[in-house]
């Protein structure tokens, strides 16, 4: 075996940058689609050339929810692994394979959407039927990401073999947790796509079991949001302390919270199907209870973050009740952007708790409230943290410097984002409470008084959307600067250390067999009985419907 050197080599940079290119191209295209949607829905724009609202919506959801996030995360995680446990030549080759497979899948799905053959939105609910190539594309994206999982697993395994009695580096541990989570979760959606959708779309199977496909999708759909969130938490726990000149608050606590995310983010998919027929109400409630367990690690994270801020501030000598808070490095965009994301998680998480609250879900299910909710979580908390990572990661990889000027542009970008999102997401939440449905083109609903109340908020969404699009343009400009034009130099890869006198991390936190075992146990507990029930009491399946989406 060739000994692996820690740190980011030229080839590692190329690898991660390939993923980041795709992420930023996606940001631009997806953002443009988002702008178009808000304009259409405000009633002030109709799309030219026979493009439909739902086609644009499909592009927006797939490219931002699935492509941008997955590519950025996997690219970022490769960098973290190379830095903390190293990567061998062979592993890097497989890493490139994962990139190529994912990219081919993305292109296949994208072409079908652009041809109008797959306007099924990113949830692709049966029995709406897209072109088979769309489903093949999705399958390849998932399979490509599995290759990345196994590369990361192998990296930690190889490192462990040569570091027998050491605990694994915190970031490597977190990456592996996230990829275990992703692998177990994507098994569900892969089963739906490969076993149900592909044969059915090719005509080999006449009908599809709609409820099974939806259940498999949401078995994946909730952990998906934690797959987005955990890389942001990695940055919060292990990178931001370094940026603000502090130490990791508690290595054990960070690991424990990641373990809890692994355990409790999968057996909870029914909270997306609460108003759905065919699922036993008792099991819906059991999964709601499990959903609430996942609040605990987020409470732990919130505490750790602010404790770390306070300890760091006081150590620097800032006194008073809030002196430490005032003197955080607000002018350093590597801190400011993720910090705004973190603050957005307070309303975002609260909204999530409302959504999952069983009967309370009836009030907001499939309304604009939900859209407002995930624009706070993934499009603010997660995305601003990813931007925060980009400000140092990209120059580190391209051998450039984050200059004062770009730093200040980043501060402006963050403020634009916060303002645009407050307006857009705020009006989405309100119009949702008034009943406005999500995922719907502009409609006056026969001129009823209720629907006319929504229009003002839809105009506000277009205003917010326009501000956000300006933010996207600025971010793409910053990306181009950091990639091609910023002055050459060395940018730090900030990784925080533990306190000198930190308590040792207990060994059981790294007992993978134990955690994966409990995860599988919880999944079996939450899903076995209701799933068997769904299969045993299955109705006759559904024939495909291609005409409603214009695919015929």
């Amino acid at each position, binding site marked *: 075996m060739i000994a692996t050197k820690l740190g980011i080599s030229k080839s590692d940079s190329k690898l991660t940058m390939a993923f980041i290119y795709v992420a930023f191209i996606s940001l631009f295209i997806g953002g443009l689609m988002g702008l178009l949607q808000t304009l259409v829905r405000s009633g002030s724009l109709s799309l030219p050339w026979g493009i439909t609202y739902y086609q644009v919506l499909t592009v927006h959801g797939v490219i931002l929810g699935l492509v941008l996030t997955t590519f950025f995360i996997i690219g970022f995680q490769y960098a973290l692994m190379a830095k903390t446990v190293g990567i061998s030549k062979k592993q890097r080759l497989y890493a490139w394979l994962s990139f190529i497979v994912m990219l081919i899948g993305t292109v296949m799905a994208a072409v079908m959407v652009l041809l109008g053959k797959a306007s099924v939105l990113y949830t692709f609910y049966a*029995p709406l039927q897209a072109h088979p190539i769309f489903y093949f594309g999705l399958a390849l994206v998932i399979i490509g990401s599995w290759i990345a999982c196994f590369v990361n697993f192998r990296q930690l395994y190889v490192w462990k073999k040569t570091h027998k009695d050491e605990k694994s580096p915190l970031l490597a541990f977190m990456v592996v947790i996230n990829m275990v989570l992703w692998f177990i979760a994507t098994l569900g959606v892969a089963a739906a796509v490969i076993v149900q959708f592909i044969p059915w779309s090719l005509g080999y199977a006449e009908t599809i079991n709609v409820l099974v496909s939806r259940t498999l999708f949401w078995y994946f759909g909730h952990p998906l949001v934690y797959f987005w969130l955990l890389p942001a938490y990695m940055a919060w726990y292990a990178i931001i302390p370094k940026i603000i000149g502090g130490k990791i608050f508690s290595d054990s606590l960070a690991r424990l919270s990641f373990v809890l995310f692994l355990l409790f983010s999968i057996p909870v998919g029914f909270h997306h199907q609460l108003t759905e027929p065919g699922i036993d109400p008792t099991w819906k*409630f059991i999964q709601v209870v499990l959903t609430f367990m996942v609040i605990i690690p987020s409470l732990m994270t919130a505490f750790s973050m602010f404790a770390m801020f306070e300890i760091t501030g006081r150590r620097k000598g800032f006194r008073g009740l809030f002196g430490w808070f005032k003197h955080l490095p607000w002018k350093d965009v590597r801190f400011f952007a993720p910090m705004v994301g973190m603050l957005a998680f307070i309303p975002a998480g609260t909204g999530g708790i409302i959504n999952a609250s069983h009967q309370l879900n009836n009030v907001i299910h499939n309304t604009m409230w939900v859209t407002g909710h995930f624009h706070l979580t993934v499009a603010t908390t997660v995305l601003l943290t990813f931007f925060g990572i980009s400000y140092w990661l990209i120059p580190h990889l391209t051998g450039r410097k984050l200059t004062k000027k770009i730093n200040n542009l980043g501060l402006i970008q963050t403020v634009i984002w916060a303002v645009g999102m407050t307006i857009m997401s705020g009006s989405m939440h309100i119009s949702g409470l008034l009943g406005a449905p999500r995922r719907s083109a502009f409609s006056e609903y026969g001129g009823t008084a209720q629907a006319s109340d929504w229009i003002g908020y839809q105009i506000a969404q277009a205003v917010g959307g326009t501000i956000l699009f300006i933010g996207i343009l600025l971010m793409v400009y910053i990306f181009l600067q950091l990639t091609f034009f910023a002055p050459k130099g060395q940018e730090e890869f900030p990784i925080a250390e533990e306190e000198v006198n930190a308590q040792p991390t207990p060994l059981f936190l790294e007992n993978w067999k134990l955690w994966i075992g409990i995860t599988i146990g919880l999944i079996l507990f939450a899903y076995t009985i209701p799933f068997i029930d769904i299969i045993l009491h299955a109705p*006759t399946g559904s024939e495909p419907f291609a005409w409603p989406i214009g695919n015929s």
Partner: protein
Amino acid sequence: MKLHRAEEIWLIIGIGIIALSMVITGYQAFAQGMAPPSGMETIDPQKVDQTTPFDNPGIFEIGENEYEVVMILQAFSFTPNEIEVPVGSTVHFTMTSRDVVHGFQVAGTNINAMVTPGHIQKISQTFDKPGEYLVLCNEYCGVGHQMMSTTITVK
């Protein structure tokens, strides 16, 4: 592994609130009958028009101030549409889909249910306030999804 004292308090309060809200939610759902709609009966989605009660969709008076609405959802309409009921009546909706997945939402009420092909969905509501209520499909069902709406008039 030792937690910080303040953190212990923070977590105990947090977990306490979670537990309490679960108890309240569970009590309301199961003891007070507020659980979200979960119709368990099935139907052959290819034979909706030939299966009772959907061979005769419409509004039926089933008791004093009590109505059953047997409704078929299809891309992109509701059958029956333009429903009228007196103030104070309780309406039981029995619904299924003839084609793809739809959502049944009545703006200004808590009626919100998925209607999927193959299952019969049920939800009830008492209409105490007069007025015209907008009924709309809130699950994407195709190019005409935003046109899928009707009204319930309460007089």
